[in-house]
């Protein structure tokens, strides 16, 4: 996807969720719940955004013993800048109702 193309509604939702706390690492399932995107939509988006350098991913230690390490995501500097470019002044612009 070229960066000059208008991002999809789903990408805007994900950008909103990630840009709310840019320094915080977020897990895939939590992002799914927050954005209400299905895994079939979220993962291709995360893969594409990581390939584009908008999102960085890292393996994080499990919160509970005996559980596998989880992949976590956050926006890169380029991602934060991109989120600011595509987001108008009000943060509510990203909400699902507004995008519908």
């Amino acid at each position, binding site marked *: 996807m070229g960066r000059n193309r208008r991002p999809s509604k789903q990408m805007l939702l994900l950008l909103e969720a990630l840009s709310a706390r840019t320094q915080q690492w977020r897990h895939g*399932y939590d992002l799914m719940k927050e954005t209400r995107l299905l895994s079939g939509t979220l993962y291709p988006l995360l893969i594409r955004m990581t390939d584009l350098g908008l999102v960085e991913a890292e393996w994080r230690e499990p919160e509970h013993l005996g559980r596998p390490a989880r*992949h976590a995501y956050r926006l890169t500097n380029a991602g934060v800048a991109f989120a600011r470019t595509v987001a108008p002044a009000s943060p509510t612009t990203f909400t699902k109702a507004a995008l519908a």
Partner: protein
Amino acid sequence: MTLALSRALLSLASRSLGSDRRTWAMAMEAEFETAVEDRRPFMFALGCLFAAWREIGKRSEGRLILANYALALGLLIPMAALQFQQAVGFLSLAEGPPFGVPRAGDGPNLYLIWSQNSAIPILLITWLLLGMAHLCLARMLVEGDWPRIVKCGMLIGAAMITLSLFMGVLMLDLSSLRAQVAELATEFVAVVAMSRWHIRVLACASRDLLAQ
């Protein structure tokens, strides 16, 4: 039951993603435990499978995986079915008059009948072995296990030569093998083409890895 099905779907998604997206497959697998706790494992796994299939067409490795599935489902499994059908057909023919001998007034050749009857079990086993080998080859191709594919290909070649020799010398009839030889040749060409494609994809992936 749903959990087992979900795990199977996730495993399929993981395999479909290929080696260069292995990290993403592991990420999905790690999140699956959370989906289980949230009692939504099936929807999560189905979504992951959908995501993996969306990724397949975008990469050369993904296209190779698709081609492997197409070859396995479109050629190798029908070939296996053909071998089993031939084995069953051969068994029913074995109950009739001797093979390859025109009706002559001299009466049946007892030595020929005895030889043919003795050869029937080994021919039947060889045909069943060919069918099984084709099923194994289809599975190995989907898994991309090339060392075993080569071994299996050699086994199929050896079984086919054995079958041709027995059919020619003892049964005096190679008509049932003619079509099979042509199909095996097609299969051989397709598998070789696939192996060359695999080598090219592997070389590209290695170059990318070194560049990184």
